[in-house]
């Protein structure tokens, strides 16, 4: 009797558990027709950009849609602790390691929730491995929503960016913004003939090619000058390698199809050429990011480089310079975080693999939990995050370029007019609300450059933190001379294969 009771009890438990996963699937059309109500949770890791952005957006969404509630959950970052050090002291320890522990914890938490069939409704893909979630069917394919929702027109967004983020044909995440690198060259360092060569090859820029073009100029300049001028301001060999791998990433490591291909000699050759660049003095590696002080920054700002890899933020200064303005803003980008002398810089274009791939990245992107119980609201909120209203809100200014076309143009206008205002306060357009001719011209030129560059962006390979960390730690053995390029390639091939087949 007793035993039978126990058996019945455990059966009841099993049934109750099995029951909780069996909700009926609603079609996307049904979801879209639902009235917006109830509440959802949005989860993000990053507390620097996303959290603030999401909280403000959630507030304005709630005001617009009474009866809804958007909870924003940022991973509990530990309180920052400051010590009272002397005024001249510098703490010189990188914070990378504790960071990785915290990331691990966050992913651990999200994974537990998702695998239990719960979790936040909307997930910020700032550090989450979205492709793993997509593989396990934990994310909603938003293609269906985009097609079925009549109020969503993909033509209003940068379609090439959105489409490039598909994974196995599914749109598991939608970006709010995008960022990319482009190459600029210092026109004062090149001969006219070399400049023509550079300008003619504009569409397909690879490091190999542009370094080749500048070879003579490099020797010319450095033969009769005491101050060496580097090709590019790469801080470390690894950064250079990373940059050079980026446009062809999937030919080395294809996460989408779980393939790794480092043994055909190309990777070893890549390693050799990075080291070669270092030996030739192409790379400026003296600067330790950890030890930066004001003098270094000042010196850096006067340094010349043949090329600079900048990010999209620097495009404004490029255009403003053309318009005769030099507002002395810093450049941002790989190897030139503190600038360098950019008074003669000319933008060439985004980095490519020499063929058709031009990589880009995003800062904010969101996915919808396939187990969400309020998908209608989740989709409405994601859509709202991509809307012109949110994307052009000056209070919420996106750091990357807005994915929304109208918002991008508005952002361009704000940025340029503000720069003009800073340059000559009082004279600007703000009083009468009209733009001056120069301003209009500059804005148009800026939009032209941005759109032109953006048009070519099409490459967003799935990257994996673990794989990248493996590469980083293993190639250090090559750069310090303890292993050959072929050995490193072999070890990595094995390790990454092990990881992919686990």
């Amino acid at each position, binding site marked *: 009797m007793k035993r039978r009771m126990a058996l019945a009890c*455990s059966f009841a*438990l099993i049934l109750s*558990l099995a029951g909780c*996963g*069996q909700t009926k699937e609603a079609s996307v059309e049904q979801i879209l027709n639902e009235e917006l109500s109830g509440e959802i949770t949005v989860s993000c890791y990053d507390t620097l950009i996303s959290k603030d952005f999401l909280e403000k957006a959630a507030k304005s969404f709630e005001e617009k849609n009474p009866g809804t509630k958007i909870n924003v959950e940022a991973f509990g970052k530990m309180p920052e602790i400051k010590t009272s050090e002397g005024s001249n002291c510098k703490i010189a320890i990188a914070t990378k390691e504790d960071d990785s*522990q915290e990331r691990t914890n966050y*992913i*651990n938490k999200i*994974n537990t929730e*998702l*695998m*239990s*069939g719960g979790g936040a409704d909307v997930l910020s893909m700032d550090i989450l*491995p979205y492709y*793993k*979630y997509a*593989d*396990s*069917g*934990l994310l909603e394919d938003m293609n269906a929503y985009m097609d079925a929702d009549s109020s969503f027109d993909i033509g209003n967004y940068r379609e090439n960016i959105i489409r490039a983020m598909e994974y196995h044909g599914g749109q598991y995440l939608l970006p709010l913004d995008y960022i990319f690198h482009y190459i600029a060259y210092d026109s004062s360092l090149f001969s006219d003939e070399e400049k023509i060569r550079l300008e003619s090859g504009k569409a397909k820029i690879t490091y190999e090619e542009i370094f080749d073009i500048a070879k003579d100029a490099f020797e010319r300049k450095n033969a009769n000058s005491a101050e060496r001028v580097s090709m590019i301001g790469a801080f470390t060999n690894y950064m250079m390698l990373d940059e050079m791998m980026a446009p062809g990433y999937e030919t080395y490591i294809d996460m989408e199809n779980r393939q790794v291909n480092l043994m055909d000699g190309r990777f070893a050759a890549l390693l050799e050429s990075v080291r070669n660049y270092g030996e030739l003095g192409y790379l400026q590696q003296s600067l330790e990011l950890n030890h930066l002080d004001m003098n270094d920054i000042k010196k850096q700002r006067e340094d010349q480089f043949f090329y600079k890899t900048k990010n999209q933020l620097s495009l404004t200064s490029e255009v403003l310079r053309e318009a005769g303005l030099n507002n002395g803003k810093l450049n941002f980008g790989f190897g030139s975080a503190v600038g360098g002398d950019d008074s003669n810089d000319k933008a060439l274009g985004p980095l490519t693999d020499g063929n058709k791939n031009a990589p880009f990245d995003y800062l904010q992107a969101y996915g919808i939990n396939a*187990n969400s119980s309020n998908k209608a609201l989740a989709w409405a909120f994601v859509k709202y995050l991509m809307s012109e209203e949110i994307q052009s809100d000056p209070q919420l200014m996106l750091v990357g370029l807005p994915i929304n076309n109208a918002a991008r143009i508005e952002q361009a206008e704000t940025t340029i007019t503000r720069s003009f205002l800073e340059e000559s306060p009082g004279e600007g357009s703000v009083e009468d609300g009209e733009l001056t001719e120069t301003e209009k011209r500059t804005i148009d030129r800026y939009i032209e450059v941005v759109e032109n560059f953006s048009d070519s962006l099409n490459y967003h390979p799935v990257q994996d933190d*673990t794989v990248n*960390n*493996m590469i980083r730690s293993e190639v250090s053995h090559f750069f310090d001379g303890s292993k050959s390029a072929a050995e490193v390639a072999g070890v990595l091939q094995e*390790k990454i294969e*092990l*990881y992919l*087949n*686990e």
Partner: protein
Amino acid sequence: MNRLFTNAGKRKIDPGLLFLLPGFAGVLLFYLWPFLVSLWYAFTDNPIKGNFVGLANFIELLHNKPYLLGLKNTLMFIGMSVPLGMILSLAVAMLIHRTGRRKELFALVFLIPLVIPSGSMVFFWKALFLNDGYVNGVLVSLGLEGINWFETPMAMYVILLIFIWKNLGYNMVLFLAGLHNIPKEYYEAAAVDGSSGVLTFFHVTLPGLVPMLVLTAIMSVINSFKVFKEIYLITGSYPHESIYMLQHFMNNMFFSLNYQKLTTATCILVLLITVLVQTLFRFERRHDQ
């Protein structure tokens, strides 16, 4: 309530069961039930809305190279660390038990590794054994060559050292508790019989410690899994292949949301361990008779 009493009149409820019940209810809810659920996942293809796939996960797992590597390393590590750790901690417990002076202080010192926060602990072990760490500094100053501790098969021995350092105190506490439970009269009787130290150890101490030996053996196995946390914090999720443990595999599966593979791996582990536990209990029971 009433029925309980009236029933008790007719058929007496085992008083043991009454004492056991509150604990058992909790164990059922928080341990046994999750345990059974996670075993169930081993037979499905997906943690959410999974379908029953029979033994497919097991077959797949037995062809999985990383899994087999982890299993091999884990069994090897258990084989080395558990006996070594037990012998050392028993020796220390006996020494402390014997020593006349400052008993508490000594016992306390061996417990220190248990209370050091894992962050600091990892920090120290790294400071000692990294390439530019303290140990290599000493080696170089002695005119020897530094060793790449974590990326050669030496890693296994470093981990063994960490394990013993961390867990010696744990076992020691258990042994001390066991040693104190052996009535002094037994020793006195042995002394009267003129038994030598070694003989007393084998005839009085060891038999008296059997239940605790079983306990420490099992806890050592559990703690040898837990040492993963330190390995992981020191060397990351993909360390040198000589210290790639089953726990690495499981942890990585968790991160890939491959829950069914994780629980399948656990299933096999539990099977192996059940055999071990059963042997230990049989040993204990035989000894008891």
